[in-house]
């Protein structure tokens, strides 16, 4: 039986890999970043159960790492896919980590000594990491990676503090990129999504006002493992944020940007509003929305509880702009849909629910894989063949085929595994 290639190691890629592996199929899981885990690893809690995201994801990541049928290719990219369904040849380009994966134990002593600080992408730049780093504390594999753009040794040929520090002798500056050729019967694409950059929508004040942040930045702020240790502190002055405004549909349902609905924001904002109140009973949350969409299992009940138990205010409205008062408080100007009148509310922190959009490299990857994207740039699928792409033998799951919440992504991943497995006849 042929192997299967899974491209993208977020929750969808992880689930697809585990399902295939448990069917006795050999899986190659390719992840662009130094660790699998994807977006879900960046989230604090998940709706509608408020489960800690890492706590439920981490065991699955470990299962992937330990599974005898799964080979992880992290920090790697697919560069070619030749052949046809049932008999593909894939080329995988593995970037050098400059760290020997077999020797490194991820203890992190090298990072403590490394002199170079770099904004931490995992933490949305809200804190610094070193040039040698573990992608996040629960990273899989648990090995360090050297950032070649910032490592002094790689840039200028001197330093080497990590070499002296590492007792496992894992640092290897001689490492080079590797090309791996894989023969596979089917491919699952699960490369996920990106968030729309709200800087273009200047009316919402992102960058202009320090206390206007995005929903993903909020997740890192409120996460116990995040840059503030889980304290919801304002970027401008480090003071606790008590009045929080959540602005929905930033870039979504707007023909000038994304005509589509991003599906998950009504619920993730509700969750974030609830979390603010759980962290600080004096906090008050306001959610400014157009249509409230909560049709998943247990969602309406969750929203009712947010209103009843946590006093979350849901304001049906259209937000016109965000200004700032003299205390750096964002002031949200909106039209209240219930009164049809303009209104405003000053808050300590404003959180923008920005659209889920295709990753910028999705189009290029689609070209490499020989599949089409739809008019929005997501991997193209059809309603009656929901996980089939336009190329036979190549399947898609998760947010790369359109905005989906976690359980939807997991279901799509299992479905893609089932579809992929049917191409693996001997």
């Amino acid at each position: 039986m042929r192997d299967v290639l899974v491209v993208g190691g977020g929750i969808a890629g992880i689930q697809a890999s585990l399902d295939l592996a448990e069917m006795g199929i050999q899986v190659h899981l390719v992840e662009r970043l130094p660790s699998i885990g994807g977006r879900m690893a960046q989230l604090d809690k998940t709706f509608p159960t408020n489960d800690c995201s890492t706590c439920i994801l981490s065991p699955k990541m470990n299962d992937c790492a330990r599974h005898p049928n799964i080979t992880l290719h992290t920090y790697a990219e697919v560069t070619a896919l030749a052949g046809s369904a049932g008999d593909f040849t894939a080329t995988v380009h593995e970037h050098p980590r400059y760290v020997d994966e077999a020797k490194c134990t991820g203890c992190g002593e090298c990072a403590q000594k490394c002199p170079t600080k770099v904004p931490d992408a995992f933490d949305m730049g809200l804190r610094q990491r070193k040039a040698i780093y573990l992608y996040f504390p629960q990273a899989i594999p648990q090995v360090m990676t050297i950032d070649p753009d910032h490592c002094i040794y790689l840039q200028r040929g001197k330093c080497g503090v990590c070499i002296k520090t590492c007792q496992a002798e894992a640092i290897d500056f001689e490492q080079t990129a590797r090309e791996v050729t894989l023969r596979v019967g089917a491919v699952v694409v699960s490369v996920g999504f990106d968030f729309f950059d709200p800087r273009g929508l200047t009316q919402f004040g992102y960058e202009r006002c320090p206390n206007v942040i995005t929903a993903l930045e909020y997740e890192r702020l409120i996460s116990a493992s995040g840059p503030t240790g889980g304290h919801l502190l304002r970027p401008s002055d480090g003071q606790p944020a008590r009045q929080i405004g959540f602005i929905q549909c930033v870039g979504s349902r707007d023909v000038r940007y994304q005509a589509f609905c991003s599906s998950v924001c009504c619920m993730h904002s509700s969750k974030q509003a609830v979390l603010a109140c759980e962290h600080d009973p004096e906090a008050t949350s306001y959610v400014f929305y157009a249509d409230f969409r909560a049709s998943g299992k247990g969602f309406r009940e969750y929203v009712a509880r947010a209103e009843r138990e946590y006093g979350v205010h849901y304001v049906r409205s259209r937000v016109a702009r965000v200004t700032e008062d003299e205390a750096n408080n964002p002031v949200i100007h909106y039209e209240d849909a219930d009164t049809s009148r303009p209104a405003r509310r000053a808050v300590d922190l404003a959180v923008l629910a920005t659209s889920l959009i295709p990753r910028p490299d999705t189009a290029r990857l689609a070209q490499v894989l020989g599949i089409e994207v739809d008019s929005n740039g997501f991997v193209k699928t059809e309603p009656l063949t929901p996980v089939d792409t336009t190329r036979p033998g190549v399947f898609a799951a998760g947010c790369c085929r359109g905005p989906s919440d976690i359980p939807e992504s997991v279901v799509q991943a299992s479905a893609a595994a089932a579809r992929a497995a049917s191409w693996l006849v001997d």
Partner: protein
Amino acid sequence: MSDRPRVGVFVCHCGSNIAGHVDVAAVAEYARSLPGVVFVQRNMYTCSDAGLTEIKTAITDQGLERVVVAACTPRTHEPLFRGACREAGMNPYLFEFVNIRDQCSWVHMREPQAATRKAQDLVRMGVAKACLLQPLEEQEVPVEPAALVVGGGMIGMTAALNLANRGFDVKLVEREPELGGLLLRLDKLYPTQDDALPLVEARIAEVRRNPRIEGFTDSMLNEVKGFVGNYEVVVKDHEGRLSSFTVGAIIVATGARVFIPEGLYGYDGQRVITQLELEKRFKEREIDADRVVMIQCVGARIPERPYCSRICCTTAIKNALEIKAHRPSAEVYILYRDTETQGTRYEAYYTRAREAGIQFIRYSPERPPEVSAKRVVVYDELLGAKLGIPYDLVVLSTPLVACDGASELAQMLKVPVDEHGFFLEAHVKLRPLDFATDGVFVAGTARWPSHLEETITQAYGAAARAATILSKDHVTSSGVVAWVNEYLCRGCGACVEVCEFGASSLVQVSPGVEVARVNPVMCKGCGACASVCPTGAMTAMHFTDAQVTAMVRAALSSESMS
């Protein structure tokens, strides 16, 4: 004590992860003083190849009978160390993990002395337990490579075909005389406006052609016994004939039914009808209405049924577009609370509806529409004014509700349903298609109202989940399971009631005498049964009273407080 087993303790530095905050040398030195401990070693990384080799060598050279590792967390590393013990010829359940990273160095980072004392306390407890560990055996049970699919609608058929095409035999049980389910009653599909019937008919033909699928129409499940890999199923047809077979996995795809709005908005089945009745009129070409008013959330998002049924907004749009297609001059109004048109496809569909001239009017539940003989009166929340809309036809969008017989089926399969009667999955986030009972899965609207696209996805997904079991020759139980002392058991059944996994059952051992038996393949070793057992007959292996008591004693023993 001379009969104390020989214990080896390995303390991990984890680089500086543990050693940076816990005095590892002091912990190791302390371990040496504990009763039973004959060997102690510190490792930079116990999990490295070197560390694992040292464990294996010590088992052989030092004649170790128990191994204790004080390190990061059993969550990630217990299987690794158990494996090392197994490779050295030791029963892996004679291994004990002491967590001194998560529970000491990480949480007490700023108090290194206290962290070190706590690590010593935990090691003392771990050693005390290790001395009482017993070798445990894992059991293998063969898997029957066949599946039962309950429900012969689109979802059941899709799941059945995927499994059959992969070489598994499938038994497909449908209550109705025909396969096809709810889709047979629909006219069009959204968002493509394609006819529903050709799709269903093609799928039915495919099922009929497939030699691996045995269909039982007009039939119901009569009995289900057994466990993952080995479910014994009895099916009864409408004439009362019984068929029995064994399957390794079960997929529940029984669907849902449409709520009938008796007594709401003047529902009469004539001029005030449901969306499903409208579809029937489309199919019979009996639609001649110039002014149609659709009312959303009829019987949904109300206190006794608080959920949103997910598919009604798109269903209303589909049928509104169909009316417009037949009669472009027709006026169609959709009275809604929130438009539930998520994602790329359905938001575009909503836009298409507005472009087609369909009028959307938002109402609030405080001021619901009123249907009189001639007009629907609605307070338009956006305009802030009352509108009277004359109508020929009112169409009520009613929610999907749990299908009849769902709770009986759930009882037979020993799986739960939620407060609305929908099947309740093992974990709403990461196990959306699994039940807590191994080998039983769910797909489609039996779980929750879903769009056709989503239910097809779930059908394939459930097939994959079932295939993870059917692809294996055996299922293996853990050694950590509950065990019954039948001399102490008085057959009260408390353990049967408390077991979430259906692992415990009462069996008659002699006339009038029942005792509990635990199926080790179904048991998860959670210990719920052991804690409710009034006679002490039930033991959670690996967490026996003696072992836990020894740990508690060790925790409280003052002589060892260093």
